[in-house]
């Protein structure tokens, strides 16, 4: 920042506003000349790949098929050769037809900008087809066409890699014009101001890309999971009656969803019975009763509970909850508990959900304005009355959101159930919580743990994605629901 002062002074004295610096527009080459250059490049690439194959033949002898490695070696040679003239803002092909790389202010783009641009471009046009479609040359030309369409429809004729690296492909640079506009005393001053503008634009673009990553991930999740789930439903072996067959035995083509849903319902119900009262109690205590000193003890305790990994709680369920609590107290009621039971796993999941309920509900209750409490006290209400009949109803939407989030987590919780509920590869229909059972997530984990042996054997592997799609939809609905509740609640205050 300190060196920019030299640039600021002359800019301020200039009759032209500095905004003019940004007004350079590239003279983008016609799409036809770009396509020509790309076609030349593509043909050269094929020539290089063939040459590599020929050299390979003479060096290593006829070693069989035309391998993937040829495309990669060609790619590396291409990248080096095309990068030869980066510093001069032109590629070898570009130097024949006056194509320059400019930054957003119209000056020759910096070395790293061009390097970024070319690597991104090669990645999209060469590496991606090689990786994704292994040597399918047709797909490569499809990608070329896609890139051409994008270039055609962007305002300055900029390709995705140009947007990423902040470069323009142009037929003329803007050095002379910009210098005249800004009346900067020495070239270094001008460079500084222009660099700052270009840097600013580049930063913005990179952040946008990072922001789009989440959308990209969502699309990937939805696309992958639902397309594989569709393969499950569309498979020849699949019939809808399989979904109501007796028990969940994917290797024997029995996919009874009721078995899994009953298990999931039990786990979720037990978890909420454990986490609801305790979590809400802790939340009310923290927001209404606890003095600051007590808070500094209770808060970290809740955070400790939140940071315990779910595998550890799974182990805790079979090492403590089942033998020391359920077996001991179950005997009093004449119920015989084994090490693995839905109840044990449900309590484990409940312990995991306590911090979720506690922290979201506490936030909701603390957001209730103090005036409400003061008005209640002013009317002579006691503390318990204020907490229960004023603060609690006012924060009700936030509290129900907390419970919904906890339900969604309990449905999606895997490891505790996988370890403690006792369902392995298959499970019969079981509606008794003192017996072992299977949930959606645990069934997925069992399928996933044997992925290697499952892959390619019938539709058991695809059923993994089918369950994933079900789980995704269920939790998505719950999350959207709780989100809507929280939003409404924010609008009130």
């Amino acid at each position: 920042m300190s060196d920019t002062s030299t640039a600021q002074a002359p800019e301020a004295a200039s009759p032209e506003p500095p905004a003019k610096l940004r007004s350079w527009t590239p003279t983008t080459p016609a799409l036809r000349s770009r396509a020509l250059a790309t076609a030349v490049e593509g043909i050269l690439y094929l020539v290089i790949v063939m040459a590599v194959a020929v050299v390979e033949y003479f060096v290593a002898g006829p070693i069989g098929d035309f391998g993937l490695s040829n495309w990669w070696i060609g790619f590396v040679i291409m990248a080096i050769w095309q990068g030869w003239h980066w510093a001069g803002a032109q590629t070898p092909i570009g130097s024949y037809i006056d194509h320059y790389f400019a930054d957003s202010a119209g000056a020759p783009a910096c070395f790293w900008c061009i390097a970024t641009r070319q690597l991104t471009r090669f990645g999209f046009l060469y590496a991606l087809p090689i990786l994704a479609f292994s040597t399918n040359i047709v797909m490569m030309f499809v990608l070329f066409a896609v890139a051409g369409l994008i270039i055609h429809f962007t305002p300055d004729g900029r390709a995705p890699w140009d947007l990423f690296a902040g470069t323009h492909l142009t037929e003329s640079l803007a050095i002379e014009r910009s210098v005249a506009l800004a009346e900067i005393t020495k070239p270094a001053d001008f460079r500084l101001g222009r660099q700052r503008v270009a840097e600013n634009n580049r930063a913005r673009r990179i952040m946008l890309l990072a922001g789009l990553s989440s959308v990209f991930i969502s699309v990937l999740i939805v696309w992958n999971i639902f397309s594989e789930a569709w393969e499950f439903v569309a498979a020849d072996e699949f019939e809808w009656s399989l979904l109501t067959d007796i028990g969940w035995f994917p290797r024997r083509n029995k996919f009874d969803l009721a078995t899994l849903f009953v298990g999931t319902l039990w786990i979720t119900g037990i978890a909420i019975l454990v986490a609801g009262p305790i979590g809400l109690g802790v939340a009310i205590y923290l927001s209404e009763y606890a003095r600051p000193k007590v808070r500094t003890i209770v808060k970290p305790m809740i955070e400790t509970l939140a940071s315990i990994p779910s595998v550890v709680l799974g182990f805790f369920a079979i090492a403590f909850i089942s033998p020391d609590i359920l077996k001991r107290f179950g005997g009093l009621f004449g119920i015989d508990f084994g090490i693995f039971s839905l109840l044990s796993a449900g309590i484990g999941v409940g312990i995991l959900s306590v911090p979720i309920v506690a922290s979201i509900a506490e936030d909701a209750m603390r957001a209730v304005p103090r005036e409400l409490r003061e008005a209640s006290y002013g009317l002579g209400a006691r503390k318990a009355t204020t907490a229960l009949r004023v603060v609690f109803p006012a924060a009700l939407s936030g509290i129900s959101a907390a419970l919904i989030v906890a339900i969604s987590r309990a449905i999606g919780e895997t490891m505790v159930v996988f370890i403690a509920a006792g369902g392995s590869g298959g499970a019969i229909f079981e509606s008794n919580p003192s017996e072992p059972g299977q949930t959606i997530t645990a069934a997925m984990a069992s399928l996933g743990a044997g992925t290697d042996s499952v892959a390619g054997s019938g539709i058991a592997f695809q059923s993994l994605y089918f369950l994933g799609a079900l789980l995704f939809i269920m939790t998505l609905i719950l999350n959207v629901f709780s989100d809507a509740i929280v939003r409404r609640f924010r609008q009130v205050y």
Partner: protein
Amino acid sequence: MTALSPDRPGKTRLPLTLESLKRQRSKDGFGQVFQGLLLFSVAIAFAMVATVLITVLIDSSEVLRGQFWDFLTNKSSSDPAKAGVAQGIRGSLIIAGIVTLVAFPVGIGAAIYLEEYAADTPLTRLIEVTVRNLAGVPSIVYGLLGLAVFVQGLGGITGGSSVISAGLTLAILVLPIIIITASESIRAIPSSLREGAYGLGATQWEVIRTQVLPAAMPGILTGAVLSIARALGEAAPLLVIGAAAFYSTGFQGQLDQMQGAFTALPMNVATFAKLPADVWAGHAAAASVVVLVLVFSINLVAIIARARLTKKLGR
């Protein structure tokens, strides 16, 4: 409850002195029962934490006392006397490294875009909604994503079920968490700070780089480091990706090891816990202790780093 209860103001007898009010309060039976219930629930929560930690410590004592060093440095084995978690520790550390390299820059960049650059357009709202929903997607679904994209789709680079695939999957898993926490701490920066820098002629990027980011750094780093702790405790996605229960590393180069079979600490816990408890319970508990020590020390690092950065900024 007395006739003087403020809940029934009609029967209140004046004068209502401070002393009489105090006396009443001590007789507020319902209030005391309610407070007792609240304290009881806090006590149960305390008991949960304590019982989990104590159970794990007691069960692990035999293994950790008898073969502490062997347990940490040995590879997986079917012999209880030789089995250790060295491969799990290695896998977890590499996963943490990959998560740091991938999820930190992307997550913080996305947060900067959402808070500093983005106008209220449909695109921005789409990004915000997807981030919030991604944060609620169960971790095992991310495992499916990793299986489809990194293990099968990009198997040429990652080597299939490898520690690279696991690291990338967990990076995607924690990305929404990093974005949300970083957005929150950037939002908390007062706009006067930005306006002052703009007033001095800084570009937007300079404002972000020199003012907003340093001021928001304590919050951003805490969220990011905590998300690493979360990634280290996740086992479900690794199970789907295909973390190995037992494997042997022969004579392999570093790259081959990165692309080869892998496991991680939570996977070790799950594997031991799934084996017959009479022989392996101690190992499961000991591996749990190692995970807990790792996770808690990362949390501690986050707390200390936050305190130091906040102090350094003089806020």
